[in-house]
C-alpha cells in the first residue's frame, strides 16, 4: 500500500538523520557508560544492604541499570526526540504545512520517531549495555524466545513513549511556549519510568501507583520480560493498552487543536 511505503520512508529518514551525527553518538555512548557506572555502584550498595529488594537480586539490579542506560536515548525518557521540533513548528506556524501534507500528522511523527529510536537503540544502546554485561555480573536469559519477547516490549515501549510526547507537543497549540511542559515531561519521565530506582523497589502505595502508569511500559516492562520477572503476554497487553489509549487521546487532542486553534504566523 502506498501510505505504508510513505511512513517507511519517513522512518528511514528519521534513522538516517540521527545516524549522521557520529561524534555526537559516540559522545552519548561514553556519557551513558559513565552514568551507568555511577548508578551500578549505588545499586550494588543498596542491594548489598537489602538483598532481594523488589524481588531482584544483585545481578538483576545491575542488568536493570545497563538496560536503563541502553534505552535512555532510545525511549527519549527525559525528552529529546521529535517533540521539541514539533513544538517549534507549532510556535512558528510551520505546522500548517504539515497539516496540509497528504499524510496524517500523528502517523508522520510516529514513523519519524520510531526511525530515530531504532537508530539510537543500535547506535547508543548496544555499546553501554555490552560494556555493562562484560564488566559486571548480569542476569540475562539464554533462550532466543525471551530475547524476541524483549524486543517486542521495546518496540511497544517506543510507541508508548511517542504517544506521551505527542500529547506534550500538542500542548504547544495552547501554551505556545513549551518550556514548562517539557520540564514536566522530564520529571515524570525520569521518575515514573524507573530511571531513578526500579519501580518494583518503590515503597508501598507509591509503588502500586507508578507501576500502573504508562511510564511503567517504558523501562520496567522490557526489563522484567528480559529477566523473566514478568510473563510476556500480560506485559504486551499492558503496553499495548496504554499505547492505544494514549494514541487515541493524541488523536482527539489533535482534532481539537486543528479545528479550534488559529495557527500562528501570517
Amino acid at each position, binding site marked *: 500500500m502506498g501510505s505504508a511505503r510513505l511512513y517507511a520512508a519517513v522512518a528511514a529518514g528519521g534513522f538516517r538523520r540521527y545516524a549522521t*551525527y*557520529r*561524534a*555526537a553518538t*559516540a*559522545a*552519548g555512548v*561514553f*556519557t551513558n557508560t*559513565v*552514568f551507568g*557506572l*555511577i548508578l551500578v*555502584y*549505588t545499586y*550494588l*550498595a*543498596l542491594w548489598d*544492604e*537489602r538483598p532481594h*529488594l523488589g524481588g531482584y537480586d544483585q545481578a538483576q539490579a545491575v542488568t536493570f541499570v545497563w538496560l536503563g542506560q541502553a534505552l535512555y536515548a532510545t525511549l527519549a525518557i527525559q525528552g529529546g526526540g521529535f517533540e521539541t521540533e514539533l513544538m517549534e513548528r507549532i510556535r512558528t506556524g510551520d505546522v500548517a504545512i504539515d497539516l496540509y501534507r497528504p499524510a496524517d500528522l500523528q502517523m508522520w511523527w510516529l514513523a519519524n520517531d520510531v526511525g530515530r529510536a531504532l537508530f539510537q537503540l543500535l547506535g547508543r544502546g548496544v555499546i553501554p549495555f555490552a560494556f555493562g554485561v562484560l564488566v559486571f555480573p548480569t542476569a540475562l536469559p539464554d533462550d532466543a524466545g525471551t530475547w524476541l519477547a524483549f524486543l517486542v516490549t521495546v518496540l511497544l515501549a517506543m510507541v508508548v513513549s511517542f504517544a506521551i510526547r505527542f500529547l506534550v507537543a500538542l500542548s504547544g497549540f495552547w501554551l505556545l*511556549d513549551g*518550556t*514548562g511542559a517539557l*520540564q*514536566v515531561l*522530564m*520529571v515524570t519521565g*525520569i*521518575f515514573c519510568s524507573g530511571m*531513578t*530506582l526500579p519501580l518494583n*523497589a*518503590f*515503597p508501598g502505595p507509591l509503588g502500586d501507583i507508578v507501576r500502573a502508569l504508562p511510564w511503567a511500559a517504558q523501562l520496567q516492562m522490557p526489563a522484567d520480560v528480559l529477566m523473566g520477572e514478568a510473563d510476556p503476554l500480560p506485559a504486551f497487553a499492558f503496553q499495548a493498552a496504554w499505547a492505544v489509549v494514549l494514541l487515541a487521546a493524541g488523536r482527539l487532542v489533535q482534532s481539537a487543536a486543528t479545528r479550534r486553534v488559529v495557527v500562528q504566523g501570517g
Partner: protein
Amino acid sequence: MGEKSRAREGLRAYRLIAGMWIRSTMAYRLSFAMTAFGGVVVTGLDFVAILLMFSQVDVLGGYTLPEIAFLYGLSATSFGFADLAIGSAGRLGARVRDGTLDTLLVRPAPVLAQVAADRFALRRIGRITQGALVLGGALVALDVDWTPVKVLLVPVMLVCGGVIFSAVFVAGAAFQFVAQDASEVQAAFTYGGQTLLQYPPTVFGKELVRGVTFMFPLAFVNWVPAAYVLGRPYPLGLPEWAAFAPPLVAVACCASAGLAWRAGLRSYRSTGS
C-alpha cells in the same frame, strides 16, 4: 597589558553581559519564576531517589541519611555555583559549529568571560537553592562534634568545590574546540561528577575512587574534607592534612583548565562563511 588588568577587564565584561541577560530574563517574570521552580524540581529528583533508597534501608555504604544528605548538599550547591557562573560555556560547541564564535573573537573583551556570561541563566539559582536546602537540613540532622575548624571547613568546601567544578566546565569548553559535536562528553564529567559525589566513596570501586582523587580530583570537592567533618576514615587512606587541600587543588585545577582553554582557543579554526 598585565595579567591583573586583563582579569579585571574580564570580570567587567562578564558583569556587563550577565547583567544584560538578567534584565532580558526579568522581562518575563512569571516564566522566570516557573522555570526556576521547575529547575528545583528537576534537580531535586536526585535527592528523591536517595530518599526512596532510604525508605528501604538505614545505611548506604555505611553512611546514614544525614551524612549522605551532607555530601549531597555540598556537591549540589557547589556544582550549582559553578553552573550559574560558567555553565553557559557548555554551549561553546554550538557556537564553534555555526561560526558565531567569530563574533566573540573580534570584541574587545576576553573570550572566556564572554563565553561564560553568554545567555547567563539566573534560573540556575534553583539548583543552588535546592542544594542549600538539603545541606541545611543535613547540618541540622547531623550528629557531629562541631569544632571551629569543622565549621569553617563547610564554606571553604562550597567555595573550593564551586571553583573545581568551574575548572571542569572550562576544561570541557576547551575540549569542545576540538570535539564540537561531541559536547555531550562534557556532561559525563560535570553532571556525572556531581552525581558521583552525592554518594559516599565507600559505595564505589577502588579504581573509580582512585581516578577521581588523583587523576581528576573531584574527591576534594566533598569526599575528603567531609570525611574530616564527619569523623569518617578517609578514602584510600589519605593523610589527615588532605582534608585541608581543597584550596590548593582548586588552584591547580584552575591552572590546568586555563592552559587547556588557551590551547583550545589557539587551535580554533573558524568554519568560515
